């Protein structure tokens, strides 16, 4: 017999007039890892927030350990054993690990200074979960994965029955994800239930016992571990909507002209960095010690303090000490996490105009017709409804926000686009949009520099990958060949056994 920790029946919730949850049913059993996936906007995060009690719900019933929560109110209450961990952990950065763990303990009398008894318990909990962290270290000095470890430790320390993990692995490396998997399995062994909300299907299927697939705010598929199949999951997510054929990256030709060349760059973590980017090519960077290659990234973000070396863009020397605005004028474009790469309160049209202000203005006046035509042409080419042209981006779908974040650089005729973890928080359709964008760059003989903690993404999107070590290029590999080598290694993550 299984014990039901949470049961959700017919949950409904509307936000900004659109029905985000439309009759969701869900059960989480004791000691199971339940995955929850779906396309962007399918209601995963809203469901997680309602379960955690940070959002109210309009219709339906939620039973937490048999106790019913009424519609119109909030489901989660402090002390009911449900803990919500978000991508940005809610920890006090200036406090130590042990202080953060003990701080929220109900009935703690010592305030932020933990008692000896509490410290002993924290150490025991960390030992039980095999978490090796310096408990006196400041949270500020920890990596994102380590911060999530602290959040998990706190939940376990506070006797969590269910831990909801809401899209926390977007910025994880494969190695970190694998370690998280081991930690979750340990928690499962201790009888804690986990709800893993995740948009990357290959990750959500790695170590979950059961998977709930959401579509249009409903649970349209439940799969048990032995039934997992990529095609079935993708189809359940998309329903009647025909999945676009997975866009394959068109490999750049070998005899291309050089678009960007960096030569013997030294300073701020770089020690003679030399590489080149051909026209129509996507090049990735990976560093074992620093997954996002921040030192190389900084070089093109206008933040680097270099001592020597040259950068040449399309035959013209570039002053690499320039600020970002100057680099944009020279032909660089930047896309980070798509939501933070647009102005959410402005419309798509205004977002495009701001980026391409130089091209759309003459004598300090904006060409209104040109501006409108450009935006309409883009929407038509990408098959998006033109009525969304003037709506603030925060009110349109995530896909349209991603399109705005990417294609504004095409309209700006940028020569090199720097993409920093651009697939973070995207679903399969959005990934296709990114691939289409890269192909469009290739067609226009532009190039892209790609940085991502997820090596799988690097080999999927890049033509070549530079392996960086100690501030210099250690090796250059063709992505397809490298991907094949790595594939077998990734497969090992699928069956993590304790």
């Amino acid at each position, binding site marked *: *017999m*299984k*014990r*039901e920790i949470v049961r959700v*029946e017919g949950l409904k919730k509307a936000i900004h007039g659109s029905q985000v949850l439309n009759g969701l*049913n869900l*059960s989480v*059993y004791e000691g199971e890892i339940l995955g929850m996936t779906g396309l962007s906007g399918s209601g995963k995060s809203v469901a997680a927030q309602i379960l955690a009690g940070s959002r109210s719900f309009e219709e339906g019933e939620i039973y937490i350990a*048999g106790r019913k929560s009424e519609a119109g109110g909030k489901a989660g209450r402090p002390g009911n054993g449900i803990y919500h961990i978000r991508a940005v952990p809610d920890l006090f950065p200036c406090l130590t690990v042990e202080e953060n763990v003990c701080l929220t303990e109900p009935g703690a009398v010592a305030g932020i200074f933990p008692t000896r008894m509490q410290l002993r318990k924290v150490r025991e909990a960390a030992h039980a979960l095999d978490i090796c962290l310096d408990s006196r270290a400041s949270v500020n000095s920890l990596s994102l994965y380590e911060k999530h470890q602290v959040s998990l430790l706190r939940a376990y320390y506070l006797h969590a029955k269910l831990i909801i993990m809401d899209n926390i692995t977007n910025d994880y490396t494969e190695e970190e994800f694998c370690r998280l998997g081991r930690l979750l399995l340990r928690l499962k062994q201790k009888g804690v239930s986990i709800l893993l909300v995740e948009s990357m299907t290959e990750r959500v299927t790695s170590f979950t016992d059961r998977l709930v697939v959401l*579509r*249009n705010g409903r*649970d*349209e*598929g*439940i799969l*048990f571990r032995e039934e997992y199949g990529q095609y*079935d999951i993708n*189809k*359940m997510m998309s*329903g*009647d909507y025909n999945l676009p054929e997975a866009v394959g990256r068109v490999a750049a030709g070998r005899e291309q002209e050089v678009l960007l060349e960096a030569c013997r760059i030294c300073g701020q973590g770089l020690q003679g960095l030399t590489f080149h980017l051909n026209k129509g090519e996507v090049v990735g960077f990976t560093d074992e010690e620093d997954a996002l290659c921040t030192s190389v990234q900084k070089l093109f973000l206008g933040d680097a303090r270099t001592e020597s070396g040259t950068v040449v863009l399309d035959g013209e020397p570039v002053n690499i000490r320039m600020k970002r605005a100057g680099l944009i004028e020279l032909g660089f474009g930047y896309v980070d996490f798509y939501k933070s790469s647009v102005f959410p309160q402005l419309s798509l049209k205004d977002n495009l105009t701001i980026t391409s202000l130089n091209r759309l203005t003459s004598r300090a006046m904006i060409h209104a017709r040109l501006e409108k035509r450009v935006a309409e042409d883009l929407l038509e080419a990408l098959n998006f409804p033109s009525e969304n042209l003037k709506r603030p981006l925060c009110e349109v779908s995530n896909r349209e926000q991603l399109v705005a974040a990417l294609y504004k650089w095409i309209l700006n005729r940028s020569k090199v686009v720097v993409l920093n973890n651009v697939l973070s928080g995207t679903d399969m359709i959005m990934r296709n949009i990114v691939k289409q964008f890269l192909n469009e760059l290739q067609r226009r003989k532009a190039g892209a520099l790609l940085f991502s903690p997820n090596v799988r993404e690097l080999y999927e999107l890049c033509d070549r990958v530079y392996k960086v070590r100690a501030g210099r290029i250690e090796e250059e590999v063709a992505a397809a060949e490298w991907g094949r080598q790595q594939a077998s290694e990734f497969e090992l993550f699928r069956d993590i056994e304790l």
Partner: protein
Amino acid sequence: MERDWKKDTEFISRNTVLAFTGNALFSVFYFVMPFLAGEIYGPGRLLAWTGIYLAVEIGFCAAYLKLLRKPVNRMMEAVKRASQDEYEAQNLRSQAEIFALQSQINPHFLYNTLDTIRSHALLCDAEDIAAMTESLSTLFRYSISRPGEMATLKEELENVRNYLLIQQYRFPDKVEYLVEGMEDEVILHYPMPILTIQPIVENAIHHGLEMKIGKGHIKLRAIRTEGRITLLVSDNGLGMSEERLEQLRRSLECSQAGQETLSGAGRQKGAGIALANVDRRLKFYYGRQYGLRIRSTLGVGTMVEINLPFEAGEQDEKRNRQG
């Protein structure tokens, strides 16, 4: 639902007793104490005293009625629903009686004929036909001779197996039948309305697997928790479009409200009627929070979730009595 109703009754009776007692005490003290103290003298004073008393009483009554409004409304709803259920029950009972009358003559004739065919088949060494006829006979005996009865999950599974045996002859090597999580004796001896699972399996074959190219499977899985038993019948057949699925879900909701279910196309194909009937029966037996839930994706398959109530203590008692 019943628990809510009981709570409301308790709430109303407790508050009524409290209100009346409090009111009586208040009235006594209000009039007796000042009278004894000599505060009430003369008609004018008495009138004023009574006026204040009436105003307080009216206020009190209004507050009391406001307090009881919600539980009384809920109770009225429950009574309305109960009378509707009773009406439905009467309908179902008369239908069952008609079925019983119809089948008084026919079944025996049918069973005898099937037995005769089986004997002839055995005499002619046609073992396939004999096995098929036996399955058909068992299937009829199970479904016709016990209308309105309860059956254990074990019996239901056996009935499904008989049904699938016949289907195996119709579509050889087309359907694989898998059962998981049925090791639990409590689940196997759980009583449920007869013919709960077989119509769902029949639907899965007819609408999901029959037209599918290649082999398919039907999987039956059971999950028991402290308060309910969930049976999951899933197939990897054709599945259904979102529009069709929505139509089917609406038909289940309508069947709950006792309305006509499927429109045009759905009715012609006969799809969904069986599911709506099963859902209606389960809701009738166990209450509105139980019954069927359907999930489906075109090209992937369909999963029907059967939700049944389970009370551990009650089941153990029944098993002990049987033992």
